[in-house]
């Protein structure tokens, strides 16, 4: 069966003419509802735009939520200084094409001091370049709500995250003291200084995201598609060559056909060997996978429960 073109004017007809809506339509409707609630109830919302596939879906949903009006909040990218060039180009192009205001926030002091995950450990590097920069950026612009593209299926501590995740005045998350969240009635009330992180894609899975990208023809960064790329090969692991400090003495990059499964910082994002050059091929590959999408991220593994610790400190 051919893929239905998007952008037609036919109603989203349920499968087989039955009364059911497909799961993607249901997820889309839920996410759009969340985006509209936040835009209407908060004074200064912002969308944390991380350039990855989840952000790409979230951005498309924002376009849909307010169409034909423009997206009523800016995008903010937390730039650690370790992002792939393709990512930065894609970011600027995308913001321009959807007509959204783009803010870029960097922890310039830490970047100038040469912070990297080898010099420090990954935990302290993330604390400075990601969490620190994020909290600073939010504070600088006085944002009271920030959308993030995190999904509950990503990691165990995320499975317990609310759609509206309350943060105290220093941006921290208390998993034992979350507000109950019932129906689609979200409690948007915060005291001055407190804020909410909002996850419109909470109920999406990695598979849902790729299927939606496919059906909606949403552009994504080229790094997701398999190509011959120079890599440091260390056993199973493929490390991007972007940063000199990553190389072991005498180590030479090799050309490997590979792709990135999730986009992070260059030193901490491993690639996977892959032949998947199209989205259907990525989906096919996903079906055959036996490890989770974060397994190639260094940060989740440096400590048992490390994501939860980072979240408590203010990370997404």
């Amino acid at each position, binding site marked *: 069966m051919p893929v239905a073109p998007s952008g037609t004017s036919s109603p989203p007809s349920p499968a087989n003419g039955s009364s059911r809506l497909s799961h993607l339509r249901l997820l889309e409707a839920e996410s759009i509802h969340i985006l509209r609630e936040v835009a209407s109830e908060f004074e200064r919302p912002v969308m944390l735009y991380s350039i990855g596939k989840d952000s790409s879906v979230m951005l498309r949903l924002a376009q*849909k939520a307010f169409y034909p009006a423009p997206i009523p909040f800016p995008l903010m990218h937390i730039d650690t200084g370790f992002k792939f060039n393709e990512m930065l180009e894609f970011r600027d192009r995308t913001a321009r094409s959807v007509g959204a205001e783009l803010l870029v926030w960097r922890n310039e002091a830490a970047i100038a001091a040469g912070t990297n995950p080898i010099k420090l450990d990954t935990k302290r590097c993330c604390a400075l370049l990601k969490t620190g920069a994020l909290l600073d950026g939010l504070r600088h612009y006085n944002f009271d709500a920030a959308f993030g593209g995190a999904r509950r299926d990503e990691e165990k501590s995320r499975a*317990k995250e609310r759609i509206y995740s309350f943060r105290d005045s220093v941006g921290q998350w208390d998993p034992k003291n979350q507000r109950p969240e019932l*129906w689609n009635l979200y409690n948007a009330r915060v005291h001055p200084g407190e804020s909410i992180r909002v996850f419109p894609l909470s109920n999406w899975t990695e598979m849902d995201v790729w299927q939606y990208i496919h059906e909606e023809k949403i552009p994504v960064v080229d790094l997701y598609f398999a190509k011959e790329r120079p890599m440091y090969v260390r056993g199973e692991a493929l490390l991007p060559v972007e940063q000199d400090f990553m190389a072991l003495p005498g180590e030479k990059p090799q050309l490997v056909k590979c792709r990135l499964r999730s986009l992070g910082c260059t030193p901490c994002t491993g690639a996977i060997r892959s032949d998947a050059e199209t989205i259907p091929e990525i989906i096919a590959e996903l079906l055959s996978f036996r490890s989770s999408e974060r397994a190639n991220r260094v940060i989740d593994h440096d400590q048992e429960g490390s994501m939860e610790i980072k979240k408590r400190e203010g990370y997404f």
Partner: protein
Amino acid sequence: MSATPVSVFSIQEFLAEEREKDLLRFSTAGSVDDGKSTLIGRLLYDTQSVYEDQVKSIQGKGTTAPGQIDFALLTDGLRAEREQGITIDVAYRYFSTSRRKFIIADTPGHEQYTRNMATGASTADAAVVLIDASKGVLIQSRRHAYIASLLRVRSVIVAVNKMDLIGYNEATFQAIELDFRRLLEQIAADTGNPVEASFVPVSALAGDNIVHRSQAMPWYKGHSLLELLESLPSSVNTRQAPFRFPVQRVLRPNHMFRGFAGQIGSGTVRPGDTITVLPSGSTAEVQRIVTFDGDLEEAYAPLSVTLVLDREVDISRGDLIVSAQTPAKVAKSIQASLVWMDQRPLLLNRRYLLKHTSQTVPVVLSALHYRTDVGTLSREPAQTLHMNDIGTVSLTVLRPIALDPYGENRATGAFILIDTDTNSTVAAGMITSAGTDDGVGVGSGLVDGWGRVTAGERDARWGHRGGVLEVTGPLELLDAVERSLFSVGVVSCRIDADDDAFILHPSLLEIITRIQFQSGLLALVVRVDESGAAMARTEGEQVTLDATDSNKATAQVHQLLHSAGIFIPSEKAGL
């Protein structure tokens, strides 16, 4: 595309199949240690929904026998619960089979976390209630069955777990089934929402009757748990129900376009339909159903769309657009069931905020009729509701809202209550009926007291006492202060101190503010000063405001009102 035609063909087939899949949301509940986490872990594992690295990370850990995987560790995510070995919060899990996608809300069985059970049930199409076969029906299982019925979860699957511990005994299973069916009947009589129940004997640990039918219980002729989940009716079909569309936002990109954005709560809409806007009652015709992907000829629940009407009608966020033939009720007095969810108990006559559809309205709990003891299903008189209590109350919203009974419509019959002080979500509410009589006080639950209204009663309702607040600064800042007070529900009266009347009659300002103050209002006396200076004063306390930052300045004003004791902390409110 470089892949072989064969693989492209099969993936296209897969994608086509995926597009046919629907979605079923279910919650799981049981007492602590009934095996919920194990059961979910088992479901995920047996449907190949967990990755190898996730399995590897839990191997050799946990409480099970050596060599046996402790499936509970796949779902027990947070450090605290790994340390204590218990589930402490709602966790959402995702898996799919070739027929359906599933979202599980795994809710804990601890009594103090029962609010999470209601949270999970509020969005669920089905509930899986666990019973430990070696223990029989315990209080938590009763509570959960009750909440499932109260929150109108249509289907309940009762999984009688740990059958391995009782030698897969049929008689025990049947005794539990009989017991529980009787309980469900009693519950339906109380809540008015019957549920359809199926019973399945399982062992989560051994995998019996979870995905595959078990050889260990040949006497059981029914389906496995997963087969039952695959065959349940999915999200209650509300397309035939009366049209309900809460307006979330007015979209006005230019003066040519004015659309009303929202998610359809129930029913179907087509261009040409006549609609009524509530509570105002004005009528119009739907001209277009606008989406990013093009206009639609028809849209139905739960799609998110934007409606364009054929004429100018005054509509804003919080209004409910309904079919003109079958409108919703507009009312100020409401009867409802409440599940109390906060550490602080319910306070009668105190003001809360009620969030219903897309609006938030101040509300007073005017009467608590009874509390339901979930153990015995008896209705007891009560002065208050504590965390996890369930009660029936009368509420008076301070302005009319459009609604339906929850039994008829989940979208327009549900609400939450928010504490104006702590901003916590303190209760989940289900509307049972509403008064059409909106004369305040007449026939509503409000005529509880008698005589002159006291200062204490006013304070309790409004959440603040009377006061005089003087603010000087740029006009924009004054507006921001007034709006911020309004949005937290302060009953204020704005007085421009530079008005000619006060110059002619110098004592007038003092007289007016005194009367307002004594009536419990906040007299907001404003003076425009565009010089860049700004200040606020009340009851002898004065602060200099940041004239360049309205957000900061309003926060300073609220702080001032707190420290002057004009905003009343909720422990002290109430009578």
